[in-house]
């Protein structure tokens, strides 16, 4: 069984969208984040929004690659971005063991720590971060209001 996510309202179904099937590698994940940025730039999002999305997609896709279950190490990631009139939404599907987002600390690690900032960055740059666990695949949903 896979995760069942709420469908977009009917009036939003025809939002411009980008769907990527990304090989499970750090390089491909990073390239995909750049592709998302290009897509959003082509649709008029400003520099700050482009940076925020590139960063958050890069973080989400990197996590999906790094923590993929052993038997899913070669399974491509699915990234979908939809550009609604007021918000942008992205869904990044991973094949990891999943985690409980609510129990994950929302604070920064000590300055001396070299890791542990990825989820913090997603929370601070996005308006909404939701993790939908499923059997076999989980989906990270990111939303951010458009500035124009």
């Amino acid at each position: 069984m896979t995760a069942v996510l709420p469908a977009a309202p009917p009036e939003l179904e025809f939002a411009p969208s980008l769907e990527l099937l990304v090989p499970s590698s750090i390089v491909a994940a990073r390239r995909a984040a750049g592709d998302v940025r290009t897509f959003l730039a082509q649709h008029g999002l400003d520099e700050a929004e482009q940076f925020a999305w590139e960063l958050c997609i890069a973080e989400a896709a990197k996590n999906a690659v790094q923590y993929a279950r052993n038997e899913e190490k070669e399974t491509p990631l699915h990234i979908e971005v939809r550009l609604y009139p007021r918000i942008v939404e992205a869904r990044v599907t991973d094949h990891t063991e999943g985690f409980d987002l609510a129990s994950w600390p929302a604070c920064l690690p000590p300055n001396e720590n070299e890791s542990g900032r990825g989820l913090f960055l997603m929370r601070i740059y996005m308006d909404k971060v939701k993790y939908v666990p499923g059997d076999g695949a989980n989906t990270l949903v990111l939303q951010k209001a458009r500035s124009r």
Partner: protein
Amino acid sequence: MNIKPHVQKLLVSGTEEISAVNANKLLRRIKAALRPNHSCLDIDLSATRFIDSTGLGILVGLHQFMQERNGKMRLLSPCRQVQQLIEFTRLNRFFEVAST
């Protein structure tokens, strides 16, 4: 990436991004170029348009590495987005960040 040694300083510049893709390579190259006389590591971020959490981690590691040598690290001329990233993660209180 350009690495330019001076008498007491090592200047790193021309890095378009510091991310999971290139951070470890960048770290290795910088550490290999550092000499005992280099008490200051300057990383010019004026060409850097993207840093992710892995890149931030590498900068933290380099900062600590320089401190252990009784030296210092400075980040120079970050663009607006990178400056904001450093501020959001409160690393502006940890790093010396300078505009040139």
